[in-house]
């Protein structure tokens, strides 16, 4: 049911190349990530999001920080 066509995939691929140039243009720190062509390069970001990014967010309670208690009054 996905609206796939060669023209659309080619356009998405060209957009991917531009995106890779931008993503890789930042100063290359030690071991920083690099971006390029992979199996998702023929998808527009909105298509990628619609297919693969389908986890629904939930509210999580904060992890209780470790409480350090004084024991000076304990015999």
């Amino acid at each position, binding site marked *: 049911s996905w609206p796939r066509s060669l023209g659309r995939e080619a356009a998405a691929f060209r957009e991917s190349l531009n995106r890779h140039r931008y993503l890789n243009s930042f100063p290359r720190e030690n071991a920083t*990530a690099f971006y390029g062509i*992979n199996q998702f390069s023929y*998808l527009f970001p909105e298509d990628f999001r619609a297919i693969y990014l389908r986890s629904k*967010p939930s509210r999580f309670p904060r992890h209780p920080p470790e409480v350090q208690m004084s024991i000076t009054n304990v015999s």
Partner: protein
Amino acid sequence: LPLRFDWRDKHVVTQVRNQQMCGGCWAFSVVGAVESVCAIHGAPLKDLSVQQVIDCSYNNYGCQGGSPLSALSWLNKTHMQLVTDSEYPFKAHNGLCRYFSSSQQGVSIKGYSAHDFSDQEDEMAKALLTFGPLVVIVDAVSWQDYLGGIIQHHCSRGEPNHAVLITGFDKTGSTPYWIVRNSWGSSWGVNGYAHVKMGANMCGIADSVSAVFV
């Protein structure tokens, strides 16, 4: 904390899987955690059925999406016995929930925890060591183009949208990072894994963290 730790080194993490065009990352992450925690407790490491979770977790939407927290809540409430992947194989689309007789051997969970560890990533690392691989939800928009290296830019914590499994961390280099198992096949990223900078809540990795108990 050790400088480097990865549950893969203990042989308790199954191979990277491929969710194909199914939006079932939430199920892959949860099942991956259950597989590992069972193996950590001495059971043989085996692929459990993601399809069973996709088909049967009624409080989620199968390949149209879901939440790891809802899946864990469902597993915990129903004591659903997860069967192996070979008994209930992955089909990459929603199906009718198959039920098995009570004599069928399966794995159920005894509980789970779910917390926001933002600003507490060292505590999160301790939880990883204590409980096993952690299910997290990240903003993975920029992961579309990821090939390798440590993700430390272009990854906001705005809107979590993808569930993955943290199997370890590495603090030996100048940029400490989480070792994150994805479900987009082993040809994506670093053999199916991503490396995400630790200590900066990169991609919102510490905002929604769950551990499984078996």
